[in-house]
């Protein structure tokens, strides 16, 4: 059997706050027959600087990342937004053709986690089991800029016991927006508040997403309001109660993403 070599791009947020998601991603990919490595030179993708207008600082991060992942066959990340950033690196290097070429090569081999499983590995049923009424947050960068609207739903469809309820106004941003959440916090708060209201309308006990950043925002608001709704990254669901797989699934079912 050919083992695909996958380089994991965990993202800075993942590394700092959600090591657990990284573990689930690693275990799932290995179970699907991939050889997972973790390039040590990886840092943040540079999006906070780029989106705030600090192009030169963002380029430094991009160059470091291009360097770190130079030998990768596939780059897989549990974040639609950070994956999008990798895919958009070539746009940053219009004036540096050498780097632009490298950035293009890198963009071509970068996939978001669920996208990689569905479109590259061609697998949809991961044998997971999770008893819950859930709703899904479709993050903006993943659905609009990366253009991946389906993969998470195709994977969740096969999770035994999981009922997925459509989320009203799912296309409206949750209000995270990186530095926007801090710089424009009154607006950001209004946005996340509406998101939580819609989540409550579904009567779901669980919110699933493919971006820790949005989930941190939504979870942070849910938690502050004292609501009993779990918030989880999709990898946590897909690695839950998998028969025959070594997993460290969080059995106590507490929300892991504030």
């Amino acid at each position, binding site marked *: 059997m050919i083992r695909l070599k996958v380089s994991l791009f965990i993202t800075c947020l993942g590394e700092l706050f959600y090591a657990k998601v990284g573990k689930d991603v690693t275990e799932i990919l290995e179970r699907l027959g991939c050889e997972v490595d973790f390039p040590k030179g990886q840092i*943040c993708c540079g999006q906070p600087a780029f989106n705030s207008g600090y192009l030169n600082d963002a380029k430094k991060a991009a160059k470091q990342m291009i360097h770190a992942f130079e030998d990768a066959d596939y780059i897989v990340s549990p974040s639609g937004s950070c994956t999008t950033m990798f895919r958009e690196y070539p746009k940053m290097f219009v004036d540096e053709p050498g780097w632009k070429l490298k950035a293009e090569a890198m963009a071509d081999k970068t996939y978001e986690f669920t996208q990689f499983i569905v479109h590259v590995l061609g697998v949809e049923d991961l044998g997971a089991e999770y008893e819950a009424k859930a709703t899904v947050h479709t993050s903006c960068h993943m659905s609009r800029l990366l253009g991946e609207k389906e993969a998470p739903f195709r994977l969740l469809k096969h999770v035994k016991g999981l009922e997925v309820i459509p989320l009203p106004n799912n296309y409206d941003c949750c209000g995270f927006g990186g530095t926007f959440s801090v710089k424009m916090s009154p607006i950001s708060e209004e946005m996340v508040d509406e998101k939580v209201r819609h989540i409550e309308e579904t009567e779901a006990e669980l919110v699933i997403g493919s971006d820790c950043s949005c989930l941190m925002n939504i979870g942070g608001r849910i938690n502050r309001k004292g609501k009993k709704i779990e918030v989880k990254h999709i990898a946590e669901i897909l690695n839950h109660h998998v028969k025959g797989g070594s997993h460290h699934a969080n059995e106590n079912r507490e929300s892991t993403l504030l």
Partner: protein
Amino acid sequence: MPMKIGNQPFFDRVDEGINNDFMQNAVSSAQDGLRGRKLNATIYDKSLVDWEIWRSAGEEIRRHTLENLDYYLKQLSDNWAAKGGHVYFAETVEDAQHYIQKVVKQKNAKKVVKAKSMVTEEISLNEALEDIGCTVLETDLAEYILQVDDHDSPSHIVVPSLHKNRGQMRDALRKVGYKNSDKPEEIAAFARETLRQEFLDAEVGITGCNFAIANSGSVSLVTNEGNANMVTSFPETQITVMGMERIVPSWEELDILVTLLCRSSVGQKLTTYVTGITPGENIEDIDSPKDFHLVIVDAGRSNALGTEFQSALHCIRCAACVNVCPVYRHIGGHAYGSIYPGPIGAVLSPILGGYEEYGKLPYASSLCAACTEACPVKIPLHELLIKHRQHIVNGEGHAPLGEKLAMKGFGIGASSPSLFKMATKLAPKAMKPLVKDGKISKGPGPMKPWTHGRDFPAPSSENFREWFKNHKKETKKGEE
């Protein structure tokens, strides 16, 4: 100051917006309603075959026109003049105001009727004409309601009174003697009756321009109420004010852009009226104006020509971006402080009015890209917002010092993986004093605004890199 609405600082206006439940309900229900209508008239309409092809065609037409703007403007102006119309190029807001004042004075006109036009809002034309003793009447129903409501400002570029609900509209009209209910048909009947005589009495009619048609020397108006047709047929003198980018090469391109405009803005396949006006065409008709003036307004638009912001001039003012913007949804149009609100307003206002006045607007976006996705001529709106931020950071506006320092630090950390690794190792220790019950509910510095309404997660107690190293060792052992 032209274009500007309100005098409060940005965040005060935002607060006012988010505390205005009436406005928020009106805006969100309008957005939710328009969304379905737009989808049905665009992506879901099989008669179009593929909406994306239409968008690409729209983008191509706009790009071509803007790249050859000088050529088409000359063609337009030559053709308009050849048919006996007057053309005036206004470089500044004041130039436009003065020219129109001059025309109105020459006619000894006192009564002016107007159709809805954003560019005349932009150049504060009503005030300029009132200054010389004219009565200026807005005849678009929504604009009329705003005008009688103590000159309230428009909060949307297509639906100017979007911030008002029916009850508020009824109450506004009470000020001019309206006695009936908040039923739309009763309100419309009242306006129709009141405005009729005004149309007949007016000496000058002023409209904006959806698109001018260069090879024909004509202008077109895309409307639903029919008031613009009254404005352009009864008064003897006709003044059309157009932003200098609102131009198409020929009727053929107009066809495509009108399709994009109607479907994107209100989800209609076509508006009730699409009117073409050419000077002198029906001059013998009793209800045709005798004198035609075309005022072509720059007022800062050329700032964008030849720059990375040129595509902002591709805008056809459909407000599709405004209608999907989650920020607009919560703060409303007035919070932008510009008559151009929403994503396009946040891009355009700083181009036309500078960063000093509108420098906050490019940050009033979570960069969710709903605007870019909605734009029928594919303006990369969220990318243009980032470009504005780059200009502000590079010294054209005021970027906060704290942010500058933080990003400097980011740049240093970003080029040194060992430093980054150290930071991720130190973070749990550094943040430990703030963590209570597994979360941070009150944070210092940049965490403060976050924790105002949200909890912040505690850093992961386990170091992922170490876990991964051990995990690899174990798997290797298992395999041996």
